């Protein structure tokens, strides 16, 4: 027993502590939630997407993380122009689905992990990230659609969720580098929590899309896929991409991709990409999905 424990520690993982086992990058397109909620996934339009996410759902069934940290953005649901926080962490026990202007999604309530969330918040602030801690907030499609993508339609979500909301709507968004560094700090925080928990980190949003203006509907699949290759294999080569490049190349809403950098920062340097899928179009966007596992 003592020997086994030592081997685990030698491999860089302490089984008595919380640990990040996987990272998931996925778009969080509201139309996916609407298609699932309204039983439209049988339509031809949805077949490529539904087939593409099936292996991810299989993987999730086998992996079953105890806690998912979901990096997402609020779209004028919980937060408005009254107060815009760069990084907010949900420290409450429960987060109801938001009414985004057409009634709340009929999905299970999201259960938080207040103790771990507070541990992360404290660790991040002492690590000089200027967090906002939020107790009471509804969560919108940015958070619930990724759950639907990975878990389908359960009666209750099979994991606890820590919402980590990033401002990507108001310019200036945090830099890519800051996001990547936040991911690294999240990893330090999780790995210093003294409970035997497995944690997955979601980076959501993207890939290229523009919802607004004369240029609405712009898609840059080549750029997205090259960016994704680098995210997997050489993330530091893309942490310096600036806001204007994201907006120009991936559309004004494509800048949501910076949230995938938080997920990547929370993973080890060397990881395995165990699944990838992408498809154009889903609504007005390029849908992307990647699953990363820490290499032991």
């Amino acid at each position, binding site marked *: 027993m003592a020997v086994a424990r030592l081997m685990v520690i030698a491999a860089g993982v302490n089984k008595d502590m919380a640990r990040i086992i996987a990272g998931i990058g996925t778009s969080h397109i*509201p*139309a996916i939630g609407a298609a699932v909620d309204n039983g439209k996934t049988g339509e031809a339009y949805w077949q490529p997407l539904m087939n593409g996410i099936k292996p991810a759902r299989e993987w999730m069934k086998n992996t079953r993380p105890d806690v998912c940290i979901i990096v997402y953005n609020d*779209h*004028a*649901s919980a937060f*408005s*122009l*009254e107060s815009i926080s760069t990084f907010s962490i949900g420290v409450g026990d429960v987060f109801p689905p*938001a*009414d*985004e*202007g*057409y*009634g709340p999604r009929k999905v299970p309530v999201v259960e938080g992990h207040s103790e771990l969330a507070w541990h992360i918040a404290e660790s991040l602030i002492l690590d000089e990230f200027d967090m906002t801690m939020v107790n009471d907030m509804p969560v919108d499609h940015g958070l619930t659609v990724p759950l639907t993508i990975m878990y389908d339609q359960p009666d209750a979500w099979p994991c606890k969720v820590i919402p980590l909301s990033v401002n990507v*709507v*108001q*310019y*200036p968004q945090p830099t890519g580098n800051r996001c990547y560094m936040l991911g690294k700090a999240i990893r330090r925080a999780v790995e210093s929590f003294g409970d035997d928990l497995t944690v997955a980190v979601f980076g959501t949003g993207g890939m*290229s899309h*523009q*919802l*607004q*203006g*004369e*240029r*609405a*509907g*712009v*898609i*840059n*699949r080549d*750029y997205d896929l090259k960016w994704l290759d680098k995210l997997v294999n050489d993330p530091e080569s893309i942490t310096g991409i600036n*806001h*204007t490049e994201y*907006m*120009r*190349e991936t559309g*004004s*809403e494509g800048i949501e991709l910076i949230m995938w950098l938080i997920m990547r920062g929370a993973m080890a340097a060397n990881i395995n990409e165990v699944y990838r899928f992408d498809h*154009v*179009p889903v*609504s*007005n966007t*390029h849908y992307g999905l990647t699953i990363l596992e820490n290499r032991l």
Partner: protein
Amino acid sequence: MREPRDYDDIPGTYVFDAEQYRKGYHLNMFCMSLNKVESRDQFRKDEAAYLDRFPMTAEQRQAVLDRDWLQMLRLGGNIYYTYKIAASDGLSFQHVGAAMSGGGGMSLAEFRQMMLDGGRPIDGNRSRGEQRYG
């Protein structure tokens, strides 16, 4: 007053920066109010009366009544906010995207087909110097 920004060169794109924030504050806060079902009902019942509650400019007010999505952006609207008006009307992001396309708009069917064909091409749409909306 405002310094030029490098993103000013991106065509057909309204970057929601501080200037837009300040210009569009009350317009967007009106949109935000539509997150409540009672507010949506009141807005539908009497749009003009409902809009009176918000200190918008006459132009902003007219753009809302006209569902002039591009004009709302020009006047400081943010798409995530203004889309709430569309949602309340039962319209999708594709309806709104079609209406704004290229300035003159396209039909929903044309917009859908463009997306099925891979989306609006990025080539020709990176900067104002290039051919626009291609």
